[in-house]
């Protein structure tokens, strides 16, 4: 059954949706959307370096994204530039560096479109293993650090005062984000990873009133987007990554309609 490319695509997409659901919620709560973008831009450099030195792509992307994340934290403390300027600086310099490296790789056949938008229909069994094992690990860590991470998301000082060690858990979460980008880059593509992270969560925010509910709905929204997106990609012969994100957009719009009714009720 796993030989069927469509089944593999579905399994990969489902695995990613389960992981990006809860992580996306934290990204929205902590206002890290643009940070996610920066990390995924830097993933291009990770991929090209992996091809250049012939090492594992996911590993290379994870390392480069983590380095960029740590550099950002350092720069925030040592410079007076605002956070968004630093993010732009890192995003575009790593993107540019990645593109320069691609130039050196001209002798190797390189699927740039697949890299940017993902190629979910070319998932092999190794990719599936990486997604499901890596994803399970990420979810487990997220569950273990849920309480302190959530407390420091709600209020840093409160968490610090009551012994929740927010700095430590913020750093762990940053590394988890890098890991998610690493395992999903091949499937969703680096331009659309942030969309996969925040769109189901944004949809869930509109229709939930407590954190656990938002996480559950975010996972559900991600799953629906993957299933609808992949089937429509098969039906209309459209690119799979963008189809998934478009499905997520439609779900978001539907949640918006409901949200308006809800807020009218409150008035």
């Amino acid at each position, binding site marked *: 059954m796993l030989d069927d490319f469509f089944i593999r695509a579905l399994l990969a997409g489902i695995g990613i949706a389960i992981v990006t659901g809860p992580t996306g919620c934290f990204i929205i709560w902590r206002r890290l959307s643009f940070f996610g973008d920066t990390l995924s831009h830097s993933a291009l450099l990770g991929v090209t370096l992996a091809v250049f030195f012939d090492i594992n792509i996911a590993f290379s992307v994870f390392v480069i994204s983590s380095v960029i994340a740590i550099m950002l934290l350092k720069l925030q403390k040592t410079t007076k530039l605002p956070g968004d300027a630093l993010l732009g600086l890192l995003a575009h310099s790593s993107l540019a560096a990645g593109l320069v490296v691609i130039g050196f790789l001209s002798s190797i056949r390189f699927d740039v479109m697949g890299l940017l938008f993902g190629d979910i229909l070319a998932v092999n069994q190794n990719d599936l293993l990486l997604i499901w094992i890596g994803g399970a690990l990420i979810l487990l860590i997220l569950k273990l650090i849920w309480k302190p991470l959530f*407390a420091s998301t709600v209020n840093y*000082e409160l968490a*610090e005062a*009551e*012994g929740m060690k927010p700095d430590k858990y913020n750093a762990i979460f940053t590394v988890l984000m890098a890991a998610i980008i690493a395992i999903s880059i091949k499937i969703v593509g680096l331009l659309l990873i942030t969309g996969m992270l925040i769109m189901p969560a944004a949809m869930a925010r509109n229709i939930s009133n*407590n954190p656990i*509910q938002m996480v559950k709905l975010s996972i559900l929204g991600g799953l629906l987007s993957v299933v609808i997106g992949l089937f429509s990609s098969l039906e209309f012969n459209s690119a799979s990554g963008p189809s998934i994100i478009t499905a997520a957009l439609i779900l978001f719009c539907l949640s918006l309609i409901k949200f308006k009714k809800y807020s009218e009720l409150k008035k």
Partner: protein
Amino acid sequence: MNKEKKTLLKLENAGFSKNNKWLVKGVSLEVRQGEIVTLIGPNGSGKTTTAKIALGIYKEIEGKVNKFTNKIGYVPQKISIDWTLPIRVIDFMSLTEEPTDEQINIALNITGVQHLKNKSLGNLSGGEFQRVLIARAIAKQPEFLVLDEPVQGVDFKGEIALYELIKKISEELNCGILLISHDLHVVMSATDFVVCLNGHVCCSGTPQVVAKNDEYQELFGDRASTILSIYEHKHDHTHSPDGTIKRKQ
């Protein structure tokens, strides 16, 4: 008997500077079980900074902070909850600890906001939110409470009730409290030890001692010293000069 009270917090010559400016310097104080220590002082005198030093929020400090408990409850002066967070009062109550449902109900009940249990935090009024903040801090049965202007925005009737509640908590839970308050009436009637700050410790001691201090009178004006005489009759105990309590029989 007073000697047996466990010390919960000890600041020794603590100070904190930011951008080469000392926010507060040379603060020494001690909070013991069942005691209320109050910080008073004008705006910008370093009260909140001192509380944050005590709580370990400010880490690069001068001097020493020793905490002898990690069951800490904190009611900050300012807190903003992001509207992007869908969070109800009940979720907020178990933010850093896992109080039982009963503990949550009791805490919400005594601060008078049990009816808000399933409401979204973003929809509360300022005073309601303040009550929830206090409830959250006490639901976890802390040994040491830091209350930074805990009754701001609370209506007049609620204010008195909440100060009575704070007094009750310190007695019933045998909890040490570091209180920051502008309300001199309350400070002088309900606390065991007063530290008057103005960038440094201006004077400290029992309310009686502080009220007679010249620097205190200069900071707060002549009327401040008369407050004590109005409220003194409420005391059910006296203090020895080092701040320990002697109960009247």
